[in-house]
């Protein structure tokens, strides 16, 4: 792999040291568990959380004489992901053995792809911002490759004083290792990259993106340099399992390296672990031979080959991806880039929004989904999947505003009632008397009463017409917010003799 620096140093991203500015260089290897029913080379289940060694076939346990047979769906998932990353699809790829010794690797090697991966170079566009002017900066991050490989089993070290417990349920589950180019220049970019990658695989349905269950984890390569100089020596932070930790690990590691260099030291190329409790990285004192994997082509497996028709069929079935969706929301629905970005960030949010916007004004729907629904979900610590207000209910509220049955203010109350109690918006408005008063007679009566009761204000408003708003407020209050605000405004102005 030839490393090319595609970025121009940007002072906004520099990290100040004691002796001047530094630039951090980040590349990532993300392991994403392929969504499939069975494993990459066996018919055992991939289901999470089953009893120890329940999801294990004799192939996964590496019993003598067992041979791997590839799961075609895993191949398709890797190709779909490659297409989502706008990457080259290699119609011929090779499986290699990566040899190392560990108790949760019964074969003594991991079947992986070394020289000829299934997917080659691609790219991801990340969006950084908004800045103080509300602007976003799009940055292209190169993808070096994506390859298929087996996951290892799981060891537990806390069950016994002198023994480790090994469960092979995960052994042989398909992983996609997605390797970026060293194109990121800040922890924010690295977090945005991981967020975007997770969003893409979720849209594609190729990985559930669930970092808590280990479905996605990142090895983060970090080095620092003086802006414009050659790349420095990197350290690899292994197995970081949350987006927040990725940011923390990079911030810590960059400053650790800057400290060493400013004191005249040198960086040892090494593997490190991030400790979320202490917020720091520390060296994994691994053996000197840890990286001598002695790769060679797996003689149990033929080359993986497919034709253009195979790729084209998968391409034709690809869902709309976040970037395309965002562009469509801006172009066809007139949403701001910011609103569109928020809505497409998660497929489930985009799906919810599209259900609400169907046959309604896109901008109004976006405002309700972003400000009211996402705001309330955030406050309640709920995910969109757990929303108490369905798209149909929120759509119903918007319809009632449009039909001028309720005012915007009452609509907020109605939203809260449905959030807490559920129910049909129109029925609630009917049964609880929340309808907007459009009967001019009733509004007129209220206006007359307020004017009669406040001669002082009436006198003032003649000198300062902008005070008319005070009367509008009083009338709204007197009618319990149910009067049509436009009607009230018109009547107040007419009665007080204020010109429009």
């Amino acid at each position, binding site marked *: 792999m030839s490393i090319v620096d595609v970025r121009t140093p940007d002072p906004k991203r520099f990290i100040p040291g004691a002796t001047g500015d530094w630039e951090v260089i980040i590349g990532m290897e993300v392991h994403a568990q392929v969504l499939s029913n069975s494993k990459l080379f066996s018919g055992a289940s991939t289901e999470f959380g089953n009893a120890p060694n329940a999801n*294990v076939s004799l192939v996964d346990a590496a019993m003598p004489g067992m041979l791997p047979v590839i799961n075609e769906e895993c191949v398709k998932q890797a190709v779909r992901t490659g297409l989502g990353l706008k990457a080259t699809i290699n119609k011929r790829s090779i499986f290699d053995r990566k040899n190392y010794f560990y108790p949760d690797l019964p074969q003594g090697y991991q079947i992986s792809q070394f020289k000829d991966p299934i997917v080659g170079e691609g790219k991801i566009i990340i969006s950084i911002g908004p800045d103080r002017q509300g602007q976003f900066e799009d940055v292209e991050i190169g993808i070096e490759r994506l390859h298929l490989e087996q996951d290892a089993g799981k060891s537990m070290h806390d069950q016994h004083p002198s023994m480790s417990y090994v469960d092979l349920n995960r052994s042989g589950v398909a992983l996609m290792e997605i390797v970026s180019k060293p194109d990121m220049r800040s922890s924010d970019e690295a977090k945005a990259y991981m967020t975007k990658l997770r969003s893409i695989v979720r849209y594609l349905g190729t990985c559930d993106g669930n970092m808590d269950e280990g479905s996605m984890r990142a090895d983060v390569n970090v080095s620092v340099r003086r802006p414009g100089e050659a790349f420095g020596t990197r350290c690899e932070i292994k197995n970081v399992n949350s987006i927040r930790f990725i940011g923390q690990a990079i911030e810590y590691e960059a400053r650790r390296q800057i400290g060493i260099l400013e004191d005249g030291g040198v960086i040892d190329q090494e593997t490190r672990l991030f400790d979320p409790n202490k917020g720091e990285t520390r060296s994994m004192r691994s053996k000197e031979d840890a990286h001598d994997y002695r790769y060679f082509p797996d003689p149990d497996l033929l080359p993986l080959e497919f034709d253009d028709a195979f790729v084209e069929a998968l391409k034709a079935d690809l869902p709309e991806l976040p970037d395309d969706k965002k562009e469509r929301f801006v172009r066809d629905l007139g949403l701001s880039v910011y609103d569109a970005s928020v809505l497409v960030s998660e497929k489930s949010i985009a799906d919810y929004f599209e259900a609400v916007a169907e046959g309604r004004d896109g901008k109004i729907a976006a405002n309700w989904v972003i400000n009211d629904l996402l705001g309330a979900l955030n406050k309640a610590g709920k995910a969109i999947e757990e929303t108490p207000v369905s798209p149909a209910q929120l759509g119903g509220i918007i319809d009632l505003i449009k039909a001028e049955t309720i005012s915007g203010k009452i609509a907020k109350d109605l939203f809260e009632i449905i959030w807490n109690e559920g129910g049909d918006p129109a029925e609630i408005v009917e049964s609880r008397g929340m309808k907007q008063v459009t009967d001019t007679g009733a509004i007129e009566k209220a206006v007359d009463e307020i004017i009669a009761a406040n001669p002082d204000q009436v006198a003032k408003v003649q000198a300062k017409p902008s005070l008319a708003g005070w009367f509008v407020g009083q009338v709204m209050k007197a009618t319990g917010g149910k009067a049509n605000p436009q009607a009230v405004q018109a009547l107040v102005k007419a009665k007080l003799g204020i010109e429009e």
Partner: protein
Amino acid sequence: MSVDLATVKRVARLARIAVSEEEAERMMGELNGILGFVEQLSEVNVDGVEPMTSVTPMEMKKRTDAVTDGSKADDIVANAPNSDRNFFLVPKVVE
């Protein structure tokens, strides 16, 4: 290409094979004999020849994505020297 004694010992350690000093000496001789024999292949001009990863002129067989195996944890751990509640037990390994 030839290997020295240190390389022989390192490869043995990576493969978790115990070799005595005496055996390592002998293996170094044997391995260098084999490597020397294979070395003759480099005399052949292979410019523009794709590396061969398989000798079989057939396509790789593929499986459909169905769960057809598993649910036999008792069998899986049956030969293990030590197990507990269907976990394999191994001497403690912690990084």
